[in-house]
């Protein structure tokens, strides 16, 4: 078994180099804040980059990240045209709180719910949030990051700037 795990890790490392431009899946069902079903293909920005952030109401670092980006979001949009899409993985326990939460926090983002974690699983988000992706104008995943530490948003916008250069 250890051999298998080792092989798998090697495999993981190699694939990491090889398979860089996986696309965002198009046909995964999400809910918008009005409770309406939408397909994941709605996550796009007319040829400009998208920051896709998986979060949850109970996740403190997620909230710190999204609060911090809010402060600079207008500047980011103006400079790079980037759009942030926040996908909540809150389950039944807190899903009903997502809409009030987003309004209460006055977040200017597009927000979707992924209660069954279908999109999170398809993107290998694993068990921990925040997990943030950058998609280029073609919807390809070009960068991803786990966790948030104060100032992490700087690294994020740097990657976006490289894309629009």
């Amino acid at each position: 078994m250890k051999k298998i795990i080792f092989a798998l890790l090697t495999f993981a490392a190699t694939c990491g180099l090889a398979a860089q431009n996986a696309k965002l899946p198009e046909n995964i069902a999400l809910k918008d804040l009005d409770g309406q079903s939408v397909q994941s293909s709605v996550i796009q920005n007319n040829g400009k980059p998208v920051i896709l952030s998986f979060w949850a109401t109970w996740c403190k670092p997620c909230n710190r990240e999204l609060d911090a980006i809010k402060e600079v979001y207008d500047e980011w949009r103006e400079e790079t045209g980037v759009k942030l899409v926040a996908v909540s993985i809150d389950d039944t326990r807190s899903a009903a709180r997502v809409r009030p939460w987003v309004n209460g926090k006055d977040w200017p983002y597009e927000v979707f719910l992924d209660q069954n974690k279908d999109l999170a699983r398809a993107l290998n988000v694993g068990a921990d949030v925040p997990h943030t992706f950058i998609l280029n104008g073609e919807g390809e995943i070009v960068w991803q990051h786990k966790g948030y530490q104060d100032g992490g948003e700087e690294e994020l916008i740097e990657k976006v700037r490289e894309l629009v250069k």
Partner: protein
Amino acid sequence: MKLGKTLKLIICTLLIFNFQHSIFNPTHAQGLLGGHVTGNVQLDGQMSRADSVIGAEEVPERLLLNARADVLYTNGDFSAGLRLEMYQNPLLGFDSQWKGQGVANYFVKYSGERLTVTAGHFYEQFGSGMILRTYEDRYLGIDNALFGASVQYRPVDGVTLKALAGKQRHFWDYGPGLVRGVDAEVSLNSVVKPLSGSKLRATLGAGFVSKYEDDENIPVPGTENRLNLPLNVGAASLRADLGFGGWSLQTEYARKGQDPNAINGYIYRPGNALMLNLGYSTRGFSAGIQAKRIDNMGYKSMRSLSGEMLYINYLPAITKNHTYAFLAMYPYATQVNGEQGVQADVMYKFKKGTLLGGKYGTDLHLNSSLVTALDTTVIGGLGTDGYTAGTFSKGDFLYGDLSLEVAKKLSKTVKLTATYAYQVFNPVVEGHAPDLYHNHIVVADLSWKVSKKHALRFEAEWMGSDSRYDPEHGHDDRRAGDWVMGLVEWNIGTHWFLSLSDQYAYRDGTGNYYNLSCGYTRGATRFQLGYGKQREGLLCIGGVCRQVPASNGLTFSLTTSF
């Protein structure tokens, strides 16, 4: 499980072909058959030594390790996945039945614009999950994935139909019950022309689940008789999600047929559950109230099993999911046999420039919940209807809390969050003798961005409780007593962090729980190393809890996605 073997073979072949091709053609991300391979790996390890003060027991193995790797192959609308898991031996607190390794999960899936078909292992949820939700939580050690087939069809925009059948994963095997279900959801705004673009938003749904399980011999004590068990147990639910402007209302009502099982003591009373969420929100303000009543809703694909495995449905706790250590010390766990509760939640933002808002604004968050048992009258035991229950009258008090959180940015670089909470907890929810603990908790959380490269976070917590640690008189709960805690976290750049914390029961002396941890994150890879003592207690995620024994030693965790 011949089908299983064939499926595994197909998935392995696809993955290997694709993998080899990516090695030989490193400039192309696409494999031989096109498509991409992605995945994630997680390793969690633990080394623990005995410590009699905190109750940590000797662990014979030097290293405990949980490991898993998901590999996913995607090609257009087609995808296939494989998960390897290894528990050699499982981490402390995980059921020993996890011990082992192998391919734990595999599937092939087609997701078109209108049709999604999955064969293999899958996770699904009908509505709020009251009658069906399969999910996985690697920290709790729960995976009740269905193994079988599922179809989702969207004949027109706004209509989703689902059908599925399968058996649930049970450690390294499957539960005995065959689970079948259908569900329909209609968004009236998409289907009814006059409603499109209307301020009124309405989505209606209905689901039905049936479980078939072979007969077994459950003797009726004191007689020669055995129970006449229903082989099929059905559950159905109706739900609505309505909205108007800033208002929203979600409700679901479920019923379950006769289901004598180990959780309810083999009684024949049908089950039911009702959930109601009412919310109003506008920019900078939100208020919500949630009510829930559960009556005999434990629904498993193995009638003789108690514990947390093989649930077909999901009934999360109605209380807020607290994250600060002391607020989460006495977590509430759902009582599937019967409970009723309400929760209220208010968020308000004092705007910049107002008296209370100051220069940067102030956030206020108020939350309160209250849960009681049902008011029941016992009419019999095994083989009878069990009890009758009053509809709205309340039974024993189970849990209540009230918390107020104020978050304020003090300057460009300093932010303070202060929390006060009052909590009343009945240990009966964890299966102990009834009692009431009254806890006052205060938390101060200060973050300071020292420079562009460095940030510090300080957390101080206090809890005063009337619970006492007195093992000689049966009070052996090591959470008891009054506690203080301090934490310092240092973020170096965006990659490194170092944190030091200590929790100390200053009155009853049930231990001094220090922890030192550091971590490194780069992109989607994260490594964390910790050393210290872990209090025994309940680890709860979404109302489902796992008992974690005390431990003393080293832990590490590596996660990566690619």
